[in-house]
């Protein structure tokens, strides 16, 4: 009988916790955000919660592909920031999001860059090099990740898609897979977002793409139709879109300048992002070489990221 008593006591205490939690007075926002934005958004959450102490931000990080199903089933959530505009448009199409404006609701952009294993063993310098025989290229699967679509678009624009496809040795389902394959020298080169490349500074070399083939990808945010705290959600969204919020994204290798001239297909029209590319290349050098100066002039806003990765041999924080 004693055992039963213990269990009952335990149950009562537990349900007390449950009730205590639910009676909390603070407003907590449910933010559906893509896994890839984790580092930047965690920083934004910190700043935002300090500014508005009665609003808490709860992320529900998942792979972007899971969100539509989640939102459809649960009809829950205040904000939505998937890893690709494609998913947000799906939400718009289903009426989960009513006021998306691609001109104003994009706090940050992905930029495409080439990454190769440390030392660039196959000497890849430009897009065209991927077509050379004997290069092991990693491509994304266009059905499961946006980078795959961009691989196809970029190489088709350069007129070498068939040759590159023949060189492909990896069909990745998500973008970190490409990063890891490069890090472990399983492929000789691939194209990823700058935000992904920056995570592997110690083990990869970064090669900027000529601006004609440099893709700029919108990363939008929106308030969902079923938002429980619409006002607070809008406040958070405004903060993300503000100069300060964008600054945080910039520290994690997102392009944030809304004025980058982009063609209809999504490629750069001029060298506005060249400086940013230079910072990225320098950051890769700085992590590998302790004597490389880390200043605003050399690595721009990536200094924090460089210092973080310098701390350990295997990236962590």
């Amino acid at each position: 009988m004693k055992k039963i008593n213990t269990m009952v006591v335990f149950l009562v205490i537990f349900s007390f916790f449950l009730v205590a939690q639910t009676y909390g007075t603070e407003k907590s926002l449910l933010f559906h955000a893509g896994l890839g934005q984790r580092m930047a958004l965690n920083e934004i959450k910190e700043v935002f919660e300090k500014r508005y102490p009665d609003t808490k931000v709860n992320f529900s990080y998942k792979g972007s592909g899971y969100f539509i199903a989640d939102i459809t089933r649960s009809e829950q959530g205040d904000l939505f920031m998937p890893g690709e505009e494609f998913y947000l448009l799906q939400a718009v199409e289903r009426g989960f999001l009513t006021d998306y404006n691609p001109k104003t609701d994009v706090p940050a952009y992905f930029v495409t860059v080439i990454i190769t294993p440390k030392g660039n063993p196959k000497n890849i310098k430009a897009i065209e090099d991927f077509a050379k025989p004997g290069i092991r290229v990693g491509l994304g699967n266009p059905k499961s990740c946006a980078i795959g679509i961009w691989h196809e678009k970029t190489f088709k624009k350069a007129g070498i898609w068939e040759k590159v496809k023949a060189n492909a040795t990896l069909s990745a389902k998500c973008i970190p897979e490409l990063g890891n394959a490069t890090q472990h020298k399983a492929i000789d080169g691939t194209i990823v977002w700058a935000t992904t490349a920056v995570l592997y500074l110690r083990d990869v070399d970064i090669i900027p793409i000529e601006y004609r083939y440099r893709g700029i990808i919108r990363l939008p945010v929106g308030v969902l139709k079923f938002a429980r705290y619409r006002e607070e959600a809008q406040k958070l969204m405004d903060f993300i879109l503000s100069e300060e919020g964008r600054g945080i994204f910039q520290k994690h290798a997102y392009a944030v300048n809304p004025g980058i001239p982009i063609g209809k297909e999504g490629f750069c029209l001029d060298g506005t992002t060249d400086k940013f590319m230079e910072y990225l290349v320098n950051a890769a050098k700085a992590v590998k070489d302790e004597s490389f100066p880390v200043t605003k002039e050399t690595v721009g806003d990536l200094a924090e990221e460089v210092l973080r990765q310098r701390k350990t041999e295997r990236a962590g924080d």
Partner: protein
Amino acid sequence: MNMALGSRGGWWPALCVGTAVTIVAVYLLLVASNWIYLGWHDTLYFFSKSRMWERFWLTVWTSTVSTSFSLLIGIPSGYALSRFRFPCHHLVASVIDLPIVVSPAVVGAFLFGVTTRFPFDWISEYYGVYIGRNVYGVLLVQFTVTAAFCARLMKASFDMIPTRFESVSRSLGASPMRTFFKVVLPMAKNGIIASMIVVWARAAAEWEGLMLFVGATEGKTDIMPFAIYLDWNGGMMGWVTSMSIVCILMAVSAITAMRMIGGRSSVW
């Protein structure tokens, strides 16, 4: 049974032992290579971070709580399945097997269907919380996945106890409940503890259901396996490797504990 490996036909035991040793060597190599990859400096660095141990304790306490609830359900239902013949007991046994057979991802998806309907939608609205988006969601997923598993293991434990002891106890005038607590439960103790550890390990390894149903909030719902996935996506291989090592150590201790406690039961 001591068969000399050199005697006639000794190649067969030698082959079997050889296979066992090889597969163990492969697993040890996996762990060792990860550790070498991480390096000594980084091992110390990551193991000294509070974030690692916060996640570790989160994993430990959530699995412990959900295992307790699973046991509350699993012990009586396992006993029922093992001893009593009630209408449709075959059907019940099959349904109980479901969460073991179907992927936990499916369980996660189904939980949406339940928690967003009456009366939960009403509770959620009234208290202004999202059911399942916090640590209780983790517990719910772990419990849903492991409860049936637990009942199954308990059934196996009770099956091994001869019914004669119960008959004797009943014939001496003890009530069914008294018989259960005084005779069956003590006899099944080893099996129950062994199953409990398996259930615990299963709960601590749950990830797919969480991915669908809960999503990760740092420091709140990211139990170890989920955190490994998160950090893998963030390119933080140091975290991934060091957390994998902690997970392996956790699993090894769980299995060793099970061997020591439930040594005489054959559930496992």
